[in-house]
């Protein structure tokens, strides 16, 4: 479960997962509840809460995992409605679209992106210090929930 806890640390969060309730299928990780744990068989395709997949030494978190992390302490930027929409469309975040910053403001760190309702829209990499005054791209989009639409295309 190291890829998951390592990813959590990258966004300034901690996650404790009971290995007993984890299931792995190929490169994909899932979190089970007690009922699923009892019923699951080895040839499953999808199970419980999808947490993400590891590929070529990198971990790609699911939006379920990002939402779980966003509920607790983590690097987060709260963005306004326009920036939220642009982010979902795959765009990066400009300084002026940020309403609040929680956790790291440092260039190079990763941060979750949440909307005005606290709902996690994805995550990105801080490309310029969030303390910067000028309006420029400060968070590069890495993954956003618009991906659900792109997967279907």
């Amino acid at each position, binding site marked *: 479960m190291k890829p998951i806890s390592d990813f959590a640390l990258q966004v300034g969060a901690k996650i404790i997962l009971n290995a007993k309730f984890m299931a792995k299928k190929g490169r994909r990780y899932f979190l089970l509840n007690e*009922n699923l744990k009892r019923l699951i068989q080895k*040839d*499953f395709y*999808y*199970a*419980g809460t*999808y947490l993400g997949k590891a590929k070529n030494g990198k971990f790609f978190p699911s939006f379920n995992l990002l939402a779980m992390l966003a509920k607790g302490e983590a690097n987060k930027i709260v963005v306004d409605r326009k920036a939220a929409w642009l982010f979902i469309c795959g765009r990066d975040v400009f300084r002026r679209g940020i309403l609040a910053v929680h956790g790291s403001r440092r260039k190079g760190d990763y941060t979750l992106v949440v909307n005005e309702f606290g*709902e996690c829209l994805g995550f990105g990499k801080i490309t310029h210090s969030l303390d910067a005054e000028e309006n420029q791209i400060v968070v590069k989009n890495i993954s956003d929930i618009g991906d659900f639409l792109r997967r*279907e295309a």
Partner: protein
Amino acid sequence: MSGKEFFVNRYERLGWKFEDVEPRQAIRINVTNAEGKNLEKRLRSIGVQLEKIPFLETGYWVRSSKVSVGATAEYLLGLYSIQEAAAQIPATLFTALKDKAVLDACAAPGGKTVQLADLMGNTGAIVALDIKKRRLAVLSNHLERCHVGNALVYHLDARQASRLKLKFDRILLDVPCSGNFADTEWFERRILKDVERNARLQREILTEAVACLTSDGEIVYSTCSLEPEENEVNMDWAIKHLNLQIEEVDCHGQEGLTDVFGSQLDASVEHCRRIWPAETQGFFVCKLRRRNKR
């Protein structure tokens, strides 16, 4: 035994005068995710006008929209699903879903699986099957988007569900069917033999489902077909061959047909619900349980 005239004539003999209608777009609020989020107001603020569907607790017609309701942040966050109104009925017919073991035997693309999870409050367990592997990816995306945490998905033919060696309290059989003319080329493509072939497949699925049902379990059977062979006639067959009884349900739709082209079916088949196309697509739904088990 094919063509628009042939099928339209059949519908007239069953008591419905054909009308070329287009079902209204509908959404269903995922209560588990949307609770306390004032979803209607949020959607209104982006130009989506909703209208409550009178026969559904969490269903809304999309009266008008300035945006695609399948591409809003609220949709991508799993606060609601796009689900045709009649298709929202089957999952609501089960009693006491919380903490139950539920089989969704023909699950993809997963609209009803997500609805079941919502009605269960993400408790218990849903085992979702589909025979087509490529459809499982769509189902999985749907589960992830809507934050479903109580489902197990298997690539398995519903006719082999007993291989799982599990018993289920509730079984949803939204079976593969001939569909209906909401699909614009339907009349050109369908022949009566397709209907008969599908009816046979549906009976095989029903038979397997009964083998996986607990003694006091419930089955909800549904199709979006208008053809009685896939609906009332199959339910009559299930009564006679699978020791099932049809439960009365309180939902939208007309009574099931008990006279099908001159053949008299079991009187209890009237407890089924048949929905001729109007604001919704054509649909059929029926609730079953083992005879004399309560």
